[in-house]
């Protein structure tokens, strides 16, 4: 009775199937991929700026000097000065803060709500699911920027509004993704096994299924984060932002893009590059994560 037929063999990592890679392996692969490294450097740089920008910045990003406005880049002002004579370099550095607060919060909100909706609707299906998905479809028929715009016109351009509205819209998109993942996940036998233990539905949804759909959720989060930055910058560009003295890339671009045809490019170029590098960085990370989960 005590014969052990399977010898206490070393844990079989990829023996049976090279394709299934254990989690640690997955992380290692991720951290090693060049896309991820580049993305992490870019995003890391801006995160540092967001955290310590005020200390790093050579000048007070809000200090104006109207008689020295729109001065081209020079030793004094690496990136030149803006329409009020403020130091563009300092504003770009410090400007990371605003967007790196709002965008992740908005995306997080959307991810949390969307994941919850997706889990519940995908798990229960039926009428609630049908109705929810129709509403989601209806909402998604309207471009995000329009919804955001309406909300901001309605509620004022506070940080909170921006977070709420973007979170709200994203939650629907994420709900769809999560729901799709849950639909296939709920067909798996471990869900039946849980029912055969008399587990409650919330446990099955959040403890059993959720960890298994975290892959798509993480991927969605990173991808959406890029879009959130894009959207927030666009809203700022359309003139929605709080106090204009606070450095904000999108708004700073908006304030200066009209000068470009007068040959004043620096006040637009540098914040644009900042946005672009941040989003590219996030997308590189998203891409790397998605690829690791695909394996």
């Amino acid at each position, binding site marked *: 009775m005590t014969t052990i037929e399977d010898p206490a063999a070393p844990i079989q990592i990829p023996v049976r199937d090279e394709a299934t890679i254990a989690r640690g392996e997955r992380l290692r692969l991720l951290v090693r991929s060049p*896309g991820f490294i580049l993305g992490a450097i870019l995003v890391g740089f801006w995160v540092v700026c967001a955290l310590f920008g005020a200390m790093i910045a050579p000048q007070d990003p809000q200090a104006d000097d109207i008689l020295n406005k729109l001065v081209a880049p020079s030793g004094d002002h690496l990136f030149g000065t803006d329409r009020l004579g403020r130091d563009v370099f300092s504003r770009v550095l410090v400007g990371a803060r605003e967007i790196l607060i709002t965008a992740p919060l908005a995306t997080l909100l959307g991810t949390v709500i969307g994941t919850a909706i997706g889990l519940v609707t995908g798990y229960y299906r039926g009428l609630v699911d049908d109705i929810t998905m*129709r*509403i989601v*479809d*209806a*909402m*998604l*028929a*309207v*471009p*995000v*920027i*329009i919804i955001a*715009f*309406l*909300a901001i*016109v*309605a*509620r004022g351009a506070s940080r909170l509004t921006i977070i709420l509205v973007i979170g709200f819209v994203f939650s629907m998109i994420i709900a769809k993704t999560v729901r799709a993942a849950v639909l296939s996940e709920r067909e798996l036998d471990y869900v039946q096994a849980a029912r055969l233990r008399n587990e409650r539905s919330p446990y099955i949804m959040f403890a059993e299924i959720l960890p298994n759909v975290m892959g798509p959720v993480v991927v969605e989060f990173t991808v959406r984060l*890029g879009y959130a930055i*894009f959207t927030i*910058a*666009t809203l700022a*560009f*359309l003139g929605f932002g709080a106090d204009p003295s606070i450095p904000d890339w*999108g708004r700073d*671009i*908006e304030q200066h*893009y009209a000068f*470009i*045809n007068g040959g004043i490019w620096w006040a*637009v170029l540098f914040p*644009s590059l900042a*946005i*672009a590098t941040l*989003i*590219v960085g996030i*997308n*590189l990370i998203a*891409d790397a994560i998605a690829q690791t989960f695909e394996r």
Partner: protein
Amino acid sequence: MGRFLLKRLGLAAITLFLLSVIVFFGTQVLPGNVGRRILGPFADQAAVDNLNERLGTDRGLLTQYWDWLTGLFTGDFGTSLAQNVPVTELIGNALVNSLKLAAFAFVLVVPLAIVGGVVAALKRDRLTDRVITIGGLSLSVVPEFVSGIILILVFGLWLDVLPVSARAPTGASILTQLEYLLLPALTLVILLFGYIARITRAGTIESLDADYTRTAVLKGLPRRTVLKRHVLRNSLLPTIAVVATQTGYLIGGLVVVETLFNYPGMGRLIVTAATQKDMPLLEAAVLVVGTIFLIAMLFADLLYSLLNPRIRYSGAE
């Protein structure tokens, strides 16, 4: 297939109805009073009340919604509060403009992105692939106001080869109109290329890796035939869906591009209507954009099912 279509149509109709509810009640959250918005801050309160009564904006919301909905069915979309012309007239103009731009952008970007995506898939993990995917990705994350401005500067002002605003003089020939639309369309190409190419690449890779492709290769078919007959047919399915999902954005979400290139399309119409609290215009415009999106999705479903016999015949079995 008839059954499949019918089901899709039914779902779209429900979605459309929900959309109308969302649009109508959603726009009610805009602050301020309609009459006050029209007459401006300097007007007399009595005049404002008067106007509200005349416009019917002092009635219950449900009544207003019902009237609006029934109006829609009789083709009456209401009258613009700010411009005092039928909403249909304003939307008609803007919609035609938006459709032109969207169509042009699609015509440019879809073939380009498909070729890009397929090439990337064929050269998977090689330099060409990296250039196309990473390059496309990087381009697509540059906000439109940045890429648009750069295009204006380079082609419109420095090289001076293309017009900087998108609106051709009235009565211009199609070709001239296209010339005017080129810069904004290019801005959209930059934005969409990476995205569509990516999806195409993924679809192509999936179908390149599929067993049926292996079967085709092992049959001894030439590579070209394998690609044309076996791979592309199936690999473009996801691309269709993705292209369709972009229509909503292209018709109604181009606020920035339309502003930059002074192009009176739906995006700007909606923004103007919202800031002016021109409710009938705003509601109708958003509804139209949503409807077009839904139609595009329906169309994509149809196309999808035409290309995918599994769906086409599932109703029949």
